[in-house]
């Protein structure tokens, strides 16, 4: 990490833990609940958001001095919509099955509050390189939570990871299933995603007392 200054490192690493967009800022929850039933979908969603956020941040940052502040939201929307359409088309062309599974949620990246939040809070006031790092960092923080949730939901819900049977074969009753283990179908439903995110928030705050809000 020697190539980055201390400040820049913070841009990349803070959103992974102490300033995580999902668990601390509680943004972007909707997609985190909707598409994390499978690890594969979580990873693709994380990468899509990373592309959109990093590119969008750079574009907005480059234009920050010429955007009239009255219409900045509209300009931001145009940028993010264009990037999302590109991602959507690429997925339809090269990962068709997955694009069907992600269905509307790729389109909903447009309304993902993390994106507009970072444009407003960061890209409008910083240079392109720092905005790029900020975009990568925040998308990584978002993706990290998505992947953790996707990991537990797929493992406990279907007994697979990325489609490979980890715990044995439920039909042939091998592995854990031979001992009478059953998949937990509840894990595949959205409420369980919320509970998993809740547990992550709980663990994170109990380990780091700085994050606990005093009432």
């Amino acid at each position, binding site marked *: 990490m020697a190539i980055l200054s201390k400040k820049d490192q913070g841009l990349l690493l803070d959103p992974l833990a102490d300033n995580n967009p999902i668990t601390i800022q509680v943004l972007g929850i909707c997609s985190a609940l909707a598409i994390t039933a499978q690890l594969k979908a979580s990873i693709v969603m994380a990468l899509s958001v990373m592309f959109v956020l990093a590119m969008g941040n750079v574009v907005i940052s480059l234009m920050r001095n010429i955007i009239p502040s009255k219409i900045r939201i509209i300009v931001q929307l*145009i940028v993010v919509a264009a990037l999302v359409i*590109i991602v959507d*088309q690429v997925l339809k*062309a090269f990962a068709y099955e997955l694009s069907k599974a992600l269905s509307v949620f790729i389109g909903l990246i447009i309304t993902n509050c993390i994106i507009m939040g970072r444009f407003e809070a960061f890209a409008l006031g910083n240079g392109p390189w720092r905005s790029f790092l900020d975009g990568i960092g925040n998308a990584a923080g978002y993706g990290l939570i998505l992947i953790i949730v996707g990991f537990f939901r797929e493992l406990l819900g279907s007994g697979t990871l990325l489609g490979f049977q980890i715990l044995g074969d439920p039909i042939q009753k091998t592995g854990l299933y031979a001992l009478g283990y059953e998949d937990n179908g509840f894990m595949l439903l959205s409420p369980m995603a919320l509970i998993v995110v809740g547990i992550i928030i709980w663990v994170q705050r109990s380990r780091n007392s700085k994050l606990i809000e005093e009432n």
Partner: protein
Amino acid sequence: MVLVVGSVLAFTASSLKPTIQLNEKFEKQQNILYAMGVNRNVEGSAVFVSTDSVKDIFDNYIKRQLVIQDGQINEDPEAYLIDLKSQLTKEVKDRKLPLFVGEKDDKDYYIIPMYGKGLWDAIWGFIALDENFVVQGVYFDHKGETPGLGANIKQRYFMDDFTGEEIMDDTKYGGISVAKGNNDPLNERKDDGKVDALAGATITGNGVTAMINSTVKLYIPYIKDLKI
């Protein structure tokens, strides 16, 4: 700015279009094969044959692709690309109805495409009949039914219930209905033309009933002619 965004998007869309269309073609082929029972189902979940091999498998199992227009039956190697939605709105004599004849284990399957309305948006699918008009398999898909309720028409436990149901009541058309409270949750009675409905998805279920009955009816006389 609009100019830049517009040209970038236009370039992306036009350069990826062929690939996307190919994917859509493969999906149709997978759906048709699924209905006639050519699939990679694992317990409880519906799995298509793989995209890489679907073209060969399709050519292998689907013996004839027919188009019915104005009482005439013609062969058409690209019948599966016909968009049923637009055909159903046309005048009867201009209407092109695709029909597929598949063969598996020395048995003929007549596969009929279907199109209808669910609760929120379009539903569509394929139904495979044998020569006695007994359902051999179905495939349903939807655009925007409620997840967990109407969207479950794509689930194995619903689609599998159709297998073995009889379309014909002796000699006249009986049809199949998705019925609530037919006291047959496991769907063991195959001669009553009723399939146990999905809880909480009444309108979608009615849509499936209407879709099957409105489309299959159009094909019955032609399938009778084909059985020679």
